[in-house]
């Protein structure tokens, strides 16, 4: 299969959809000649022009709201928020407007809006450019939340997001953009609400969000040397969440570890655990555990940053402890 970067996969998804539907517009900071802060989407401005690919001023709340207004009146906007840390600036539009207008209007409004943003630590960009704030949007009814793992996943899920008539928050992991992956050349989309079993196993189920699913896969390879056979599940979308796939898996393995780069407290890992607990309780051989970012702001120095975020080594160690003791 041909190999391209995660960034190229994202760009292809947008390009293919924009070519297919002239009502798709793309708004955000630095997306014109720069092709985005992570240079993921070069060439779109040149191809589609300034009305369909628009640099916005640094006014997150209002350009996100502008996306909503455009979505309500016939367009299908993609709004890029450079870092999910900046999503907080658009808090009102995301939480009170975009998520609620369809419901508040008794189903009159249709909001075909995709918000692309980035999450993740690992670049020494400190506390305001490294967070993983997916739990915040998962908490709000009315938003779909997508966390793709690999490039192929990102492409297929982004195309689905753009075609969805509901608001979707799409989290890209900033450490992935330049990584090379196999991505099918032919057209495909990946439906929401269908988890992906990356590896089957019988001793433990590891649910990893975003690229933690890939890290879990790496850890699983090492774990086989210890005789531990882990099953890896990428939930793909947190809203809607494919609980059944996780439940079925845990019923077979008897153990569940959830890995998510968000903060631990009130996080996605806690939510997934609680969502499946009732169904898997009598099948468990060990308590459900979670591996997340610690409850502190992300520190600058690599000496401090890496120890507080989950990675393949920490997954390996935790799983070993959970299975062997």
């Amino acid at each position, binding site marked *: 299969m041909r190999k391209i970067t995660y960034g190229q996969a994202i760009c292809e998804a947008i390009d293919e959809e924009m070519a297919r*539907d002239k*009502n798709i*517009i793309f708004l955000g900071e630095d997306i014109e000649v720069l092709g985005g802060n992570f240079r993921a989407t070069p060439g779109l401005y040149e191809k589609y022009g300034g*009305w*369909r690919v628009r640099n*916005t*001023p640094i*006014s997150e*709340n*209002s*350009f*996100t*709201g*502008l*996306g*909503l*207004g*455009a*979505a*309500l*009146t*016939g*367009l*299908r*906007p993609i709004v890029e928020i450079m870092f999910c840390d900046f999503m907080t600036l658009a808090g*009102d*539009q995301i939480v*009170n*407007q975009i998520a609620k*207008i*369809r*419901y*508040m*209007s*008794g*189903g*009159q*409004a*249709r909001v*075909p809006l995709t918000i692309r943003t980035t999450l993740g630590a690992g670049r020494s960009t400190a506390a305001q450019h490294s967070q993983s704030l997916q739990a915040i949007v998962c908490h709000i*009814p*009315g938003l*779909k939340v997508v966390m793709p793992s690999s490039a192929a996943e990102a492409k297929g899920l982004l195309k*689905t997001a753009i*075609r*969805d*008539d*509901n608001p979707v928050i799409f989290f890209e992991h900033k450490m992935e953009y330049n990584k090379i992956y196999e991505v099918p050349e032919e057209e495909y*989309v990946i439906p929401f609400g269908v988890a992906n079993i990356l590896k089957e196993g019988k001793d433990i189920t590891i649910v990893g969000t975003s690229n933690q699913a890939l890290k879990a896969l790496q850890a699983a390879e090492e774990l086989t040397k210890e005789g531990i056979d882990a099953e890896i599940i990428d939930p793909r979308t947190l809203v809607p969440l494919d609980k059944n796939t996780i439940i079925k898996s845990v019923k077979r393995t008897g153990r569940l570890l959830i890995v998510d780069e968000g903060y631990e407290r009130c996080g996605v890992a806690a939510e997934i655990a609680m969502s499946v607990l009732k169904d898997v309780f009598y099948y468990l051989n060990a308590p459900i555990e979670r591996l997340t970012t610690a409850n502190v702001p992300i520190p600058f120095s690599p000496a401090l940053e890496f120890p507080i975020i989950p990675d393949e080594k920490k997954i390996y160690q935790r799983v070993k402890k959970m299975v062997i003791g």
Partner: protein
Amino acid sequence: MENKFKPIKNYSLSKEKILKMYQDMLKIRYFENKITDLYSKGLMPGLAHLYIGEEAIAVGVCNNLTERDFAVSTHRGHGHLIAQGCDLKRMMAEVLGKEDGYCKGKGGTMHIADFSKGILGANGIVGAGIPIATGSGYSAKVRGTDQVTVAFFGDAASNQGTFHESINMAAAWKLPVVYVCENNLYGISVDIRKVTNTKNIATRALAYDIPGIVVDGNDVLEVYRATKEAVKRARKGEGPTLIECKTYRWKGHHVGDPGRVYRLEKETKEWMARCPIKTYKERLLTENVTTDKELVIIEEDIKQIVEEAANFAIKSPYPKEEEAFEDLFTEQEGVK
């Protein structure tokens, strides 16, 4: 504060249009008074922000719009919807939280929307509709239509970031949006004059290099004229306009708030003497546009329409409990 009205004939309007504006203002007044009545009888859940005293703005503005145009309303939004021709029965049913309401009882007074009339929602967050209206303007530009969008907001919203951020973008890209600031002097209890240095909010248009116009918000014809100009500019692709309408909220912040603690009775009385409906009626009669008899017929007619709306709303059933779980997401995916 003296009324210095220009002769009605100066506006070159048909008699039909002149009387329609009278009718629209009265409709709002009677609708809002009926809400007070229903509230005092305990028939209305929650509360409502009344538009009494500000009728000339919605009516003067919306009489320039077609059903293809768009408007974004506010928490004090009943007037905007009525002026845009929305159905009083479905509005009142929504205010009472009933099944037949525009939003099936899910939105209530602060969120009545009628997308078929271009009303893209009414907002409970001060200033939050301004970016939405701006996006609607951007959309018209991309889709290549001549549709205009009006953003209604109050004086207090002009101190939100969204006001500045949105007008900045609309000005930079010459978007077909008319920003209508209804300056009723108070944000709940806070006097705008005590938290803002500029005498006129319209002055802020200078910062974005767009026209900023101050009009008497209690003179429906002046509001109409200023909006007409702004709509014309917008349709021609010349960009946005900021119109500040000076007005006054007769009632408190919402039904049940007497609105007396934070403002002087003298001020309220002065503004009430400048009632947009009463003064307009006087002009219609003094300038022989119409007869008292004709106006009485209009008024009786409206009384009846509002009464019917209230009866309809009272009789309408409450939504079923399970409906709380409907309308969150649209069922059909958007794959074309």
